[in-house]
């Protein structure tokens, strides 16, 4: 853990580079960091208000809320999760020149991808607020300022997963293929497309025991509804995230010496 702190400059630099490199080559460069989520949320909003005309009253809760915005808000933490997983599983192979060529603090690699994906989701939140204000004439709730409280356990949760995936993907390359299906499946069992209120009693566990469901709900509560996430859920999720991080990091640290040999 101390190495992570010692190498904070390196993590910052790598994250910056990785983040910037995704937009490299385009003429607008970093503007795309805000433009592409903006386009996405604007598109979703337009589809669900003008084209399909589905307002949220037909589903549940706030009757005036555009379903596209509701959907996008849930997508933000999910995209961070899916990116951390799919990139984490490849992270060792992608950086083979660092792994095999120099003495490199390997701990920083998965964390860097997670941080990059979280920064991207912050831009997503920004885009969401812009659309909310401009298209729907709503100001975001003040509770959105509490979002960092969710971000910290989210960081632990996704990094824990990323560390585990990095190990798995390096040892068994097939995991990388499997993972895509897994990520797609979690999309459907998480209340992103469907509201929690509509879940039959028998399937409640999909919401109750799904850490992603907690994240999705918290983002919506804080940004769209001005409610605090349930205290119980927050405690459970935080503990689970911490545990996942500790386990993932420990496994990764134990096995990282073998990575150079496995490439």
């Amino acid at each position, binding site marked *: 853990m101390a190495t992570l702190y*010692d*190498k904070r*400059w*390196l993590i910052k*630099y*790598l994250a910056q*580079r990785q983040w910037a*490199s995704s937009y*490299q080559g385009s003429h607008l460069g970093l503007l795309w960091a805000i433009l592409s989520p903006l386009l996405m949320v604007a598109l979703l909003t337009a589809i669900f208000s003008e084209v399909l005309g589905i307002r949220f009253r037909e589903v549940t809760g706030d009757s005036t809320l555009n379903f596209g915005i509701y959907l996008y808000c849930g997508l933000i933490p999910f995209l961070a999760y899916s990116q951390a997983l799919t990139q984490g599983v490849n992270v060792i192979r992608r*950086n083979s*020149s*660092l*792994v*095999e*060529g*120099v*003495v*490199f*603090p390997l701990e920083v690699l998965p964390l860097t991808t997670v941080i990059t994906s979280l920064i991207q989701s912050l831009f997503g939140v920004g885009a969401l607020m812009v659309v909310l204000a401009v298209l729907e004439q709503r100001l975001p709730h003040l509770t959105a300022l509490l979002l960092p409280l969710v971000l910290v356990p989210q960081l632990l949760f996704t990094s824990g997963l990323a560390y585990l995936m990095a190990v798995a993907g390096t*040892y*068994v*390359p*097939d995991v990388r293929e499997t993972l895509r299906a897994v990520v797609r499946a979690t999309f459907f069992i998480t209340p992103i497309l469907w509201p929690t209120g509509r879940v039959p009693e028998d399937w409640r566990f999909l919401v109750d025991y799904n850490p992603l469901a907690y994240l999705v709900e918290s983002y919506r509560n804080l940004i769209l509804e001005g409610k605090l996430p349930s205290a119980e859920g927050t405690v459970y999720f935080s503990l689970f995230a911490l545990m996942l991080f500790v386990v993932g990091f420990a496994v990764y640290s134990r096995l990282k*010496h*073998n990575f*150079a*040999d496995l490439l």
Partner: protein
Amino acid sequence: MPAVSVRGVSKKYRIFPSGRARLQETLSFGRKKYGHDFWALQDIDLEVEPGTTLGVLGRNGAGKSTLLNIIAGIRQPTTGTVEVNGRLVALSGLGAGFNSEFTGRENVMLNGLILGIERQEMLERFDDIAAFADIGEFIDQPIKTYSSGMRSRLGFAVAASVGPDILILDETLAAGDAVSRESALQKMYELRDSGTTILLVSHGMGTIKDFCTEAVLLHEGRLIASGGTDEVIDHYQTLVSNIRQSKNPRQKEEEQPPDGGAIFEGKASKDPTFKEDLDFERRVADHRSGTGEARIRSVELLDERLRQVEAVAFGSTVTVRVYLEYLEAVGDSELLISLHSQVEPGQITKPQEGQFYGPNLGYVLELYERYRENPVSVDEQTREFFEDWNPPQPETNGHAPGVAGELFSASTALEGVPLKEMEKGKRMVVDFAFKVPLQKGRYKVSVGICAGDEDSYLDRIDGATTFRVARPNNRKRFRGIVHLPTQIKVHVPEGERQGWSA
């Protein structure tokens, strides 16, 4: 306290025929085996004192990079320990640790941060690094646009700028032109003189010879020689020239080269076993003559470590091993070998006027004799060559059995190791060991055995074995056939001393 100390380090890789086999073995939790072990390094012990510049030699795949990677901490040894005292910087391979999408500037920063230097410090050093790497405006272009020389200069510049106590360089200097190599060497001398311990892998013998104070030689994962650079380089060159490796070198390594002309007799543990070699018999059938009371069963050419080879290093000791069987009882007998230079068919070229024929004249003459007896006995190209060729007249043609092109001969009687009376069925193995300070080229060895003082052979094989002498290294290039050991002394004539020493 040594800068680097390696104790009993071995590295095992498990080799699987396929990825699936690896998975199957993992999932069976040790109950089934699908792969096999490969030892990339075995029992390496190495101590490097601070300030040493150590050259690491070995053929490709000998384990050099694995060893350096283990010392650097990039890979873990399977057994054994490595202790490193001081800040270690490793540059393994060309542009390792560089991300080819990033610009040179970004990579310099990144590498500095990887090596644990504060960002601020790195920014301060940046100009020096860029100046040394000397890549001009390319510093802000992605690394993927760089030439290999630029990559290696940049990598080296970063590594050198960190001020390492121990620097590991793996083939990094190989790229780059003379100028950049020169400036890198300059920097290395500076580092060396400031007390940096340097471990260097290079196939450039010159670099290692000039730069290193010590060297080690790795072969098939084992450290087989260490010590002064000259000594280890000689060892390496012998190894390299032995292109054809014997099947089981490890066993033979333990044997010592015998003294010249000794006969193996009795049951000492070092004795070779007798060999009947049907391939050999078939191959030499046409070149064989003699009355047949004794028979040469096989002839082998061995290098200094008694491995069967085809090529040997200039000046090294070769052993011609003759397997001999007496088919009848024979009184005193004498075993002879002779060495000829050999030209492969089609290799004779027509000399220009006034040019001398070089080491192969003898053989050309021999061929010419054969051509005159029977023109069809030589190949077409040679025949054409001889059609309008006037052989130069040799002044004398040596004595009795001497054949044109013969470089030298030796016999048991001549060397004072007589072969006494032999009963029927007696088998012998006779070794002739001699040095070959010969011009590069191909040589053939003929072997014969004759009884007592008689001139007729019991068995004789013309060209029983052949070997090649590899090109001597730069310092030992010479003209002519043989390089006789020469001592040079420069005398200053009486009365002219002043002029010389001024």
